[in-house]
């Protein structure tokens, strides 16, 4: 595998309180060459994200959906994170709730659909077409 050292792996953060979903997304994206931070506590996510400075955030709207929605609103207000694209990963169709997100993934999601959605926003860390 030839990877240019000048291009560090894009960083993707995943926020979801479903442990298995988190594990799945993390492993699938790591397999594809991304650097992944998995966060299972939405209330503590902002601080961690400010440090990690992801290129993309995958956000579950969670079941008490206000927690997901309010976290999304917080991200859009945050001076460090406001321009980071967010893909909504949820069991609900979120297009009506959050129309300005960078992408939407409806659960259940498989690895191919996940990578497809991510690559539409971020360059392939292995040099493939975005």
């Amino acid at each position, binding site marked *: 595998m030839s990877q240019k050292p000048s291009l560090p792996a894009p960083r993707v953060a995943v926020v979801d309180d479903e442990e*298995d979903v988190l594990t799945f997304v993390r492993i699938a994206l790591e397999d594809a060459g991304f650097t992944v931070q998995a966060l299972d506590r939405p209330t503590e996510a902002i601080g961690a994200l400010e440090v990690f400075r992801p290129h993309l955030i995958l956000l579950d709207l969670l079941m008490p959906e206000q927690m997901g929605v309010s976290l999304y609103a917080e991200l859009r207000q945050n001076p460090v994170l406001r321009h980071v694209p967010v893909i909504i990963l949820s069991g609900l169709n979120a297009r009506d709730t959050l129309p300005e997100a960078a992408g939407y993934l409806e659960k*259940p999601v498989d690895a191919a659909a996940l990578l497809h959605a991510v690559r539409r926003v971020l360059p392939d860390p292995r040099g493939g077409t975005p």
Partner: protein
Amino acid sequence: MKPGTDWKASYRGHLFEEIPCGIVVIDRNLRIVDQNLAFTTIFGDGRGRTCYEVTRGRRTPCTECLAEQTFRDGQRRSREAVGVDPAGKAVHHLVQIAPIRDETGNVPFVAALTTDLSATKRLQREYQTLFEKVPCYVTVVNRDFRVVKANTLFRQVFGEPTGEHCYELLKRRHERCPECPAEQTFLDGGSHTSSHVGITRDGAAAHYVVSTAPLVQTDGETTHVIEMALDVTRLHRLEAELLRANALREALVENSPYAILILDQRRRVVLVNRAAEKLWDCSRDSLLGHALPRRALACRLDEIVGRNGEPAPLVDSTIVTAKGVEIPVRLSGFTLHPAEGERSTALIAQDLREIRKLEREKLDAERLAAVGQTVAGLAHGIKNILTGLEGGMYVTSGGLARHDEARVRQGWEMLERNIGRVSSLVKNLLAFSRGDQPQPRLVRPAAIVAEVVSLFKELAEQHNLVLETDISDVAPASMDAEGIHTCLTNLISNAFDACLVSHKPACRVLVALREENEEIVFEVTDTGCGMDYEVKQKAFTSFFTTKGSGGTGLGLLLTRKIVQQHGGSVTFESSSNEGTTFRLRFPRRRLPPLVEEEHNAG
């Protein structure tokens, strides 16, 4: 001395002594030469002293001395005078002076007759005070019905009378009243009383009770009548208000949606309203005057009546109609303590049939709504599980492709876990969706608690949690043991999760059972993570879970359903980071009735 003369002298002397007015004989020097008993009684013995000293306490003669004038001209005189008795008290008396002539016609002595007027004066004053101060309008009218004299109250209200007719002043009439008690008194000389309505100076109606009595009679004919008019306007108004209040009370009682009975001390019905006739399904006449049958009320009267002035407790009980039908009611009562007469008991019954029906309907509606939410939420829950399964397959197949055994194991665990979630979800969902009524049997609540707690002992040890119980002796109750078992399992399981999430070094879970005020209370307290505001709001929402893949979000909902089917309630207190207490309360009187045991097996 001849016997006749003796007798005459004797009775004259006797008369002089005994006559009930004071007589004193005075000489020209105004010295008392003789006095009778009555005089002595008033002024003491004054013989040899001057009259002015004895009767007035003076040292010099009075300025206008009647005796001196009579000594001069021999004329009789009289005058009212105020003297002073030996005790220094004023004595009102009428003094009459008569000359005593000798054979030559000179006047060597005068006789002074003193009539004590003190009693008369006092009576006069008292009469005047009574006339003036009596708290009603008192007038004296003549045969023309003109007011010739009026008392203070009358003058204050109607002004000084200047010859007006009584009907002009009291009633603002221009002619005599059709039924005039004064006229009747003028006619028959007797007393008369009647009620009258007049108009006050402000134009308002005034009610009087007027009594008349003859005052002055001359030659058998009454010339003046005393009229006493008592203003009863206020009383009249109170009476009218009382009548209105009574009518209102009767209307309220009669039209109350609650059945009302009043029973005397022998339990005899003295009042029945329409709702009571309807509730007991019998006519008013068949209830009134008869003792309320024992079986008509499932509870005793003293259970309903508030004691020592405390508000009456609301007791859910049943009544039995005249036709033997049992009706669920909410009862309350109170004792009536009249100022006079014996006490009685008021009984108020609210027919609960409609409310019970609504309660059942509401519970069904809640259940259906919950099922609806469940179906909507189900898709979401299953999507998460499917994603978990998808992930499990991805991780497993990746591991297999790379011969990475650790990764295969990780993927396999994900698959197992999510298949387990599907199974528990389906189980809870079925339990919740079943419309089953509880199957109550007489059970010992403490036994259920002990059984559930024993199931968690091992888990507590594994996670280093302290699991304690505080179980009081609670009498057996009609409960669905399996349902209560499910509730406690859910609550203890939640408490364990709250402890494990909190990452505190030593967490405690306390399961308590007690009975207070006829309520069986189960309590599960943990010192775990507690709930914040948002979580508290959603605690009973289906599919709400804070446990990620660990929970189905149905546990509390199912618990509440079971508790409600037992007529109980679920409450909780929680503060973030401090812990949570869930409390199940089961009022005994609301527990479901026992299901009859089958007679014979098979």
